[in-house]
């Protein structure tokens, strides 16, 4: 039984009941982060801010949006964009943030890969992060349907159709997911529910898990150095701040993050006001028409690389049809990064430039994914189809074959050195 005495201030009264002082220490002033980091370590705070922007702008869009195939387009493009005070601003912020958040996610992911921040106890950080990537993808896809424009409709049509490739239950499953034989009102309302309630709840839960998973193994640093956090924290608290290898989250770490965030926000709001078409595709300003496919259908840029893996296999091989191979490759591409900690067979945690062949592998992977992204948007004809094919093969080869081989060699060398 805790001791409750007469409190001398509101703070003291609350502190007795909520342990505010201790909480502040645990979460802020004595939450230790390595000092040897660069601005890429600020992407977590940037992502959190983008998520908050999406949540807040989404709340205000929700006040006027109407999830009905007859009303949705006008409620977005007329009511919100033209009538509601600052409705246009919320929508542009929401649309641009939804696109930009993936840029930051990819930077965050590639930072993790470059510095080896997915192994030696940090596997759960990586896995919860990948779960966030997948739920964000689902959130983006369901949200893209809501304005009920041409791209909304045809993206929904094409992506829900993918489930038809699952053996035996495929056709039934597609109808079940859509709630109709085609993408219709029932589809819109259920994806609306997913977008505004279920998925955000799940995302918030996983964000909690992601943060919590950092507690035990701690944040990685620029050199992959193993730090005795307790000893270093003692140094810092004793005033030997320059000597300590750690800094507290508040105010030292956050002060740098806020500067990075400030610079990022300049970039973000420049896009919101002056350069938004990349995130709000012009074709989606045509109302959905189930009887007319737009001449070019493509997903948003952040899905292009996996989309290109899907369509990269355009010819049958033996008994397997092109579509089945594509679907399998697509399935693999979507889960392969989850396995990163196990595909990397080396125990070495170090930045890529100190890992020889892994360094080359990293840049080849990055370039290959950019090639997939670009060719994912180009019409899949002639030479483009072949570039897509080879880039897809390269992608699968890099992760399934090259990575285990390279890292196994590295493990041997590391073992020999030790």
């Amino acid at each position, binding site marked *: 039984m805790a001791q409750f005495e007469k409190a001398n201030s509101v703070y003291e009264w609350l502190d007795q009941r909520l342990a505010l002082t201790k909480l502040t220490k645990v979460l802020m002033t004595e939450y230790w982060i390595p*000092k040897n980091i*660069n*601005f*890429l370590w600020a992407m977590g705070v940037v992502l959190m801010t983008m998520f908050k922007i999406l949540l807040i702008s989404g709340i205000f869009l929700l006040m006027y949006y109407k999830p009905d195939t007859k009303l949705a387009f006008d409620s977005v*493009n*007329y009511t919100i*964009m*033209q009538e509601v005070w600052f409705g*246009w*601003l919320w929508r*542009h912020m929401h649309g641009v943030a939804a696109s930009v958040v993936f*840029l930051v996610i990819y*930077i965050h992911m590639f930072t993790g890969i470059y510095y080896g921040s997915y192994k030696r106890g940090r596997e759960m950080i990586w896995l919860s992060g990948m779960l966030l990537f997948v739920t964000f993808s689902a959130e983006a896809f369901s949200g893209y349907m809501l304005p009920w424009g041409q791209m909304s409709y045809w993206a929904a049509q094409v992506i829900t159709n993918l489930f038809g490739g699952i053996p035996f239950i495929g056709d039934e499953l597609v109808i079940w997911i859509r709630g109709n034989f085609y993408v219709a009102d029932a589809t819109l309302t259920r994806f609306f529910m997913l977008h505004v309630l279920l998925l955000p709840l799940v995302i918030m839960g996983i964000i909690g898990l992601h943060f919590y998973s950092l507690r035990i193994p701690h944040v990685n640093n620029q050199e992959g150095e193993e730090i005795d956090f307790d000893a270093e924290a003692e140094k810092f608290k004793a005033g030997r*701040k*320059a000597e300590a290898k750690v*800094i507290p989250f508040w*105010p*030292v770490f956050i*002060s*740098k993050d*806020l*500067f990075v*965030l*400030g*610079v990022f*926000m*300049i970039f973000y*709001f*420049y896009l*919101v*006001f*002056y350069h938004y078409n*990349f995130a709000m595709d*012009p*074709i*989606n*300003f*045509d*109302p959905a028409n189930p009887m007319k496919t737009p*001449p*070019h259908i*493509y997903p948003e*840029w952040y899905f*292009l690389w996996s989309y290109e893996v899907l369509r990269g296999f355009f010819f049958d091989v033996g008994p397997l049809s092109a579509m089945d191979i594509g679907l399998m490759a697509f399935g693999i591409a979507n889960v392969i990064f989850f396995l990163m900690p196990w595909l990397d067979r080396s125990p070495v945690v170090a930045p890529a430039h100190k890992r020889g062949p892994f360094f080359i592998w990293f840049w080849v992977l*990055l370039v290959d994914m*950019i090639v997939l*992204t*670009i060719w994912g*948007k*180009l*019409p899949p004809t002639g030479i483009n189809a072949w570039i897509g094919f080879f880039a897809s093969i390269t992608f699968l080869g890099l992760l399934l074959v090259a990575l285990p081989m390279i890292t196994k060699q590295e493990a041997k060398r590391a073992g020999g050195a030790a």
Partner: protein
Amino acid sequence: MRELKILGVVILFTLITYWGVEPFAHSQMHAHHEPATFKYEDITPLGKKGNPQRGAEIFANAGCTGCHSVKSQNLPAPMDPVAASASYGVNPPDLSDAGALYDPKYLAAVIKNPAHAMKLDHKFNENRPFPMPNFYGVGGDLDQEVADIVAYLQSIAPKEVEPKEAFVNACGRCHDMKYDNWYVIGPKPKMDTELEEAQFNLKHAEYQENLKKYLGTNPPDLSMYIRSRGHEYIRDFIEDPQKILHGTAMPRVGLTEEATEKVVTYMENVGDRKKEKRESLGPLVLLYFIIFALLAYAWKQKVWRDVH
């Protein structure tokens, strides 16, 4: 220094990706076409100077007013829009502003052979004649008479045409603009009863049905076209629809460059109503975050002083 190097790498790869999925991909997807010149070079000029007085006489005698109204000259439309669409497929335009909106060369060509001037030869022929007959003259020199009619139309046209007027006359008989309450049969008045509402909707549906028979499809509502197509595309499309979308049912309407800009301005006023707000708020928000970043930097320097 190292951080700047990393930043450079991040920016470089971001820009390459952006270039690939936006400017490059779109250049591959959309066939290149020459920008609009509004010279209408395929049409040979008549080479005659028109006389507006004679033109007025010919206009009255040639039967133009059998189908067209000229409201500024107190010549009313012979039929309401729905009845006119039942007869001709589409409500014929009022000609009060025609001299100001349309290129004089084009006007002359339309009077002589409408389907050809509109580039609709692929849809209309002897078996399926264009609703407006070719003009074969009232007895004198054909080209001179046509030049006179054009001169007459120019003489009665106002100096300035409002953007909305330009749209209504040139586009608004086939296209709705519902975000500005414009419908192919006219603006929707404030309705007091459900019956009035139903009657208006019925008229609209009848007109649309006639239009569909005439064109083969219903022309789209243009409310959001400024966002879905953009300024350049609309401009080029208006000058010559067939060049951009081969086989389209839309006729070439022959607007002058100035009138085209008016139409686009109107579409922008309707489809991108908050443009001014956006452009005035943008710099303020950016300035806010520049100051935010500077203050954050100052604070960071202070906090990190003892840590280094």
